[in-house]
C-alpha cells in the first residue's frame, strides 16, 4: 500500500493510536515521576533500610530490559496467582523502569544543590521531610528538567512494549503490527508511526527547553 491508501484506510486508527501512545506516556511518566521522587527521598533518608531498598530498586529496574519485565508480569505472575490486565502490566513496566532513571537524574540534580542551603534549613528548625519537600526536591526537579525531558521521550518509546500484548485500543507500534498482519502495509505503515513518534519527541523537546529556561535556578 502506498501512503495515500494507508491513510485513507487507517487514518482514524493512526489518530487513535497516537492518542493512546500519548495517554500511556503521560500516565507512565506521571507515575514514574512520583515514584522517582519517592525512591529518591528514600535514598537520602536517614533510615538505612529505606536507603538499601531504594538503592536496590534503582539497580534492578535500571538494568533489566523492558520486554523481560513485561514478559515476567504477563506470564510469570499468574503462576503466583497474581493476574493483572494487560494494560496494568504494560503500565507497570513503563512506570517502574523510568522511575529508576528518574531517581538517578534527581540524585544528580540534588548534588548540584549547595549543602549550605540544607544546613540553613536545618538551622531554622526545619525537619528532614520539610527540608526535602521545600528545599531539596523542588531544586532537584528544576535542576533536572532537561534529563527528565529526555526521560519523557524514552518513556514514550518504552510504551511500544504494549504492542507485545493484546491491547485495545492499540498504540502506534501495535497498530503497525496490526496493519502488517491484516493487510500489506509494508515499510510505509512503520514510517507513519515513526514520523508520529519523532514529531511527538520534537514537541516534547521544545516544551522541555522552554520549561527549563523558565524554572532553571539562577545562581
Amino acid at each position: 500500500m502506498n501512503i495515500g491508501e494507508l491513510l485513507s484506510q487507517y487514518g482514524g486508527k493512526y489518530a487513535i493510536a497516537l492518542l493512546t501512545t500519548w495517554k500511556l506516556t503521560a500516565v507512565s511518566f506521571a507515575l514514574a515521576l512520583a515514584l522517582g521522587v519517592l525512591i529518591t527521598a528514600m535514598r537520602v533518608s536517614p533510615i538505612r533500610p529505606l536507603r538499601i531498598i531504594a538503592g536496590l530498586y534503582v539497580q534492578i529496574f535500571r538494568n533489566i530490559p523492558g520486554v523481560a519485565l513485561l514478559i515476567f508480569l504477563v506470564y510469570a505472575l499468574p503462576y503466583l496467582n497474581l493476574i493483572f490486565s494487560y494494560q496494568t502490566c504494560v503500565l507497570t513496566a513503563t512506570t517502574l523502569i523510568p522511575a529508576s532513571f528518574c531517581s538517578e537524574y534527581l540524585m544528580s540534580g540534588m548534588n548540584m544543590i549547595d549543602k549550605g542551603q540544607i544546613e540553613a534549613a536545618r538551622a531554622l528548625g526545619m525537619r528532614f521531610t520539610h527540608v526535602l519537600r521545600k528545599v531539596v526536591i523542588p531544586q532537584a526537579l528544576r535542576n533536572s528538567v532537561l534529563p527528565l525531558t529526555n526521560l519523557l521521550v524514552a518513556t514514550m518509546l518504552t510504551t511500544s512494549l504494549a504492542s507485545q500484548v493484546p491491547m485495545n485500543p492499540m498504540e502506534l507500534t501495535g497498530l503497525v503490527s496490526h496493519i502488517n498482519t491484516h493487510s500489506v502495509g509494508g515499510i510505509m505503515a512503520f514510517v507513519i508511526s515513526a514520523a508520529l513518534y519523532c514529531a511527538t519527541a520534537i514537541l516534547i523537546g521544545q516544551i522541555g527547553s522552554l520549561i527549563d529556561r523558565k524554572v532553571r535556578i539562577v545562581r
Partner: protein
Amino acid sequence: MNSEHKSGAETPVIELRTVNKYFGTHHVLKDVSLSVRQGEVVVIIGPSGSGKSTLCRTINRLETISSGEILIEGQPMPAEGKELAQVRSRIGMVFQSFNLFLHRTILDNVTMAPMDVLHIKRKDAEEEALKLLRQVGIEDQARKVPAQLSGGQQQRAAIARALAMHPKAILFDEPTSALDPEMIQEVLDVMTSLAKSGMTMVIVTHEMNFARNVADRIIFMNDGAILEEGAPDEFFAHPKTERAREFLASFRNEQKESEL
C-alpha cells in the same frame, strides 16, 4: 530568683561545658567552655583553622560533639528529631555564604520556616517578613530571587530570615567574609543595630573595628582552644598571650598594607 536582674544566677542562653570535638583523629575543639548571657554579644576571633566555625556549628548541632555538654537556656541539646529541630528554631544562624534558598523569592525565604515550623499563617508570616525586610533595608527586594540581589543584600535577607523565627540568640559565622568591601558596612550596620536592640549574638569575624565596637566580650581561639577572653578594650589594648599579640599584629600589618 529575680530574672529581671542580670545576676550571676541567671540561666545563660548558651552554655558549653568542656566541649571536645574530633574530626577523625584531628582534635578541633579542646575543652571549650563558654557561657553567653541573655543580651550579650560575644565575638570570636582567631587564626584560620583555630576552630571558630566548628564551635559556632556545634552550638546548634550542625556538628556533633565528641564529649562535653551544650545547654540552650539551661536545657541539654537534644540529639536528634523533633526536639533538636525545636531547639534549633530558637537559635538563628547566619552563614558566610548566605545560604539563601535559591529557588524562592526573598519573601518566601523569610516566611518558609515560620510557616513550616511555627505554623504561622501565610498572611501573618508575610506581614512580619516585610517588616523585617524593612528593618534590614531591603523591603523593595522582597519579590526577587536571591541571585538578583547583591551580596550585601543577600546577607541582610539571611539575617531577616533568621530574625523571623524570633530566635533567643543568633550565631554569625564570618557574615562579611564573602562580601565585596563596599558591601561589608551595610551588613555590619544591621548587626550593630541588632546588638543595640539587645539580641544575644555570637559572632565569628575578622572585622576588628566592628568587634571592638559591638562586643561585650572577645574570645580569642587558637588551635581549638579558647586562649584568652575579655572585654574588647582590654583585649585589644593589652592582649595577655603572645599568640594573641601576634595575631593582632598580623592584622594591623594586613590593614596597613591594604591601605597603601
